[in-house]
């Protein structure tokens, strides 16, 4: 193994082909530890930090603030202080002469989403990882108004030693916009049927927000399908919820109405890029989405509160439970993190908001990986 480690432009989500450097958090000559955030990077959709892959000294910064690099492009180099400058220069020259950015969409860009028919309706999902690996399968379930791209910072990392599925719930993403009864039971039954359809007998469920309440409901209605529950900023654990956000999201018809709402999702509202707002507007303008969201919000969050609180039933299930929350969550209060009794691990992350799996992706990924073992 080389004593010289690269820091390269990450690939966040299937469509990312290049990213912009927003700024360095470490300077040349600084000692860095594996897992420390080194440089801030922004894709069209989202901003985040790249971590050091190894412990050592940051020896080179090969991109300046505002530079745009293709995915895989060299941002910096970490090496031991003992490695000579000449060796590092040679390594960089070698990397740059051999580096070819991935070609456009025509080329194989790795995994792509698939569609599957479940109970007569199409569901879109993305599978990463290998069923031959040792870990048990995992399913990621997004929240209200979200889709499988909410896991863009998590999916690949979690799939290091298992197959991991992420799906679009009915009414969301590119799945059917027919939500049927439009309640948690209907969504949970669809998730159970999805697992059957892709041939997974039981899985670790990871649910965010409304997806957490869906995961809980799957565990209650189909306990044999659930190995464990990881609930992130989850619904279903208490009655309070920011209904201003829910109602605003359902009714927002343009960018100016939507953008301030989305700022509530993150502790750092600068993470709401124009592309994120535009993507959500495109989703909201699809035929059937307005109806689906009204039906779901009417059933789940009527009268300014969550209509389904399942915290008390969790202990009786006997499933391992991990609860993760952003301390600054402005959608569902962090107090709900402590509402669960029984065999529960709780991780509360400071300075993070409702989309904690995006804002603190590395922490969330590590917590889930440790938890499922």
């Amino acid at each position, binding site marked *: 193994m080389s004593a010289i480690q690269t820091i390269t432009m990450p690939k966040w989500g*299937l*469509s990312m082909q290049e990213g912009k450097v927003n700024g360095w958090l470490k300077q040349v000559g600084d000692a860095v530890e594996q897992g420390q955030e080194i440089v801030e990077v922004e894709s069209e959709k989202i901003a985040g930090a790249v971590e050091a892959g190894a412990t050592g000294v940051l020896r080179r910064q090969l991109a300046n603030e505002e530079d745009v690099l293709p995915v895989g492009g060299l941002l910096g180099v970490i090496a031991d202080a003992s490695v000579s400058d000449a060796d590092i220069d040679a390594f960089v020259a070698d990397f740059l002469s051999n580096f070819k950015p991935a070609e456009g969409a025509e080329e194989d860009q790795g995994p792509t989403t698939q569609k599957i028919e479940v109970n007569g309706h199409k569901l879109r999902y993305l599978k990463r990882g290998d069923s031959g690996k040792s870990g048990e399968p995992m399913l990621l379930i997004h929240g209200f108004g979200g889709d499988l791209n909410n896991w863009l910072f998590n999916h690949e990392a979690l799939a290091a030693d298992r197959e991991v599925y992420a799906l679009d719930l009915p009414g969301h993403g590119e799945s059917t*916009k027919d939500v049927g009864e439009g309640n948690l039971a209907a969504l949970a039954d669809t998730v159970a049927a999805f697992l059957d359809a892709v041939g997974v007998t039981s899985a670790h469920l990871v649910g965010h927000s409304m997806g957490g309440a869906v995961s809980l409901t799957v565990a209650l209605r189909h306990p044999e399908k659930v190995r464990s529950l990881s609930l992130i900023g989850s619904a279903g654990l208490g009655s309070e919820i920011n209904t201003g956000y829910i109602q605003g999201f359902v009714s927002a*018809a*343009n*960018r100016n109405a939507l953008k301030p709402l989305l700022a509530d999702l993150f502790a750092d509202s600068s993470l709401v890029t*124009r592309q994120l707002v535009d993507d959500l507007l495109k989703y909201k303008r*699809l*035929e059937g989405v307005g109806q689906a969201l009204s039906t779901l919000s009417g059933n789940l969050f009527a009268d300014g509160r969550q209509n389904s609180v399942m915290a008390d039933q969790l202990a009786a299930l006997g499933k391992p439970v991990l609860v993760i929350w952003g301390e600054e969550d402005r959608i569902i209060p962090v107090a709900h993190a402590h509402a669960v009794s029984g065999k529960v691990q709780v991780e509360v992350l400071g300075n993070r908001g409702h989309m904690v799996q995006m804002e603190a992706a590395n922490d969330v990924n590590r917590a889930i990986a440790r938890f499922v073992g």
Partner: protein
Amino acid sequence: MARKITYQQAINEALDQEMARDQNVIVMGEDVAGGSGAPGEQDAWGGVLGVTRGLYAKHPGRVIDTPISESGYVGAAIGAACCGMRPVAELMFVDFLGVCFDQIFNQAAKFRYMFGGKAETPVVIRAMYGAGFRAAAQHSQCLYNIFTHIPGLKVVVPSNPYDAKGLLIQSIRDNDPVIFLEHKALYTMEGEVPEELYTVPFGEAAVVREGHDVTIVAFGRMVLKAQEAAADLQKQGIHCEIIDPRTTSPLDTDTILESVEKTGRLVVVDESHPRCSMASDIAGLVAEQAFDSLKAPIRQVTGFHAPVPFSDALEELYIPSAAKIVAAVKSVKEYK
């Protein structure tokens, strides 16, 4: 990843899905059925460049081939719209709309106003526009500005497949006359387009690229030229913001003004002739309403005050190029 189709397929799909949804939607124009009555209806060409291909077989009786008389069938479409249909009249080249100005300017555009709000005219007039096809001076013009001038008309200039489908569906559902203009050089452009129906509202600009140095407002095909220029300028350390208004009437002035308030510099790229153009319109708007924000004179990159030439070399020279946009952006960036 979402499915990719071309601009031309996006228009065809919007027509097909709206015809399936609403029996009042009809398509009429010269050769739009294509080979009707003969074997091979399923695959008949459908329109001069095949945009309406396949619609005749799927929606029998609602794709109407008309005589070569634009003034006749555009008038008929407007009349049918007043009586409850939702016609989409195809006019091949926008250059030919000249013979229908009375129907469009004095009738369709005025009915709602002159009948005291009691009449609606939900007609869509589709036409190709733009240079670059060696189609000579009578088939290459860029005339959205002329329709934009007339109150009562809505004018749509999509620059990509996603917008083409969503804006055409919005045009068909809109209760006012809409001039829907398709740049012929964009027909083969591919992009991600949802399979479902969706609409893109009028008067909402798209911010195609964000940047803080110079605002570029561009229309239709010029959005692509602006993107090409911006990618080049990025390498030179100049960060452009590109705004695609998507509709010239109504016009999203807020997005343009907010951007110029941020950058202080404006370049407008418009394939039309320069006089009384969208370029001069937006330059006037910004000069009047955001003067205090401007750090440099506004620059317009347009065609020439001359007919579009037929000669290859001259036509290429006529069309605003990425290089001309780069030069204009640099001149406002470096202005002291």
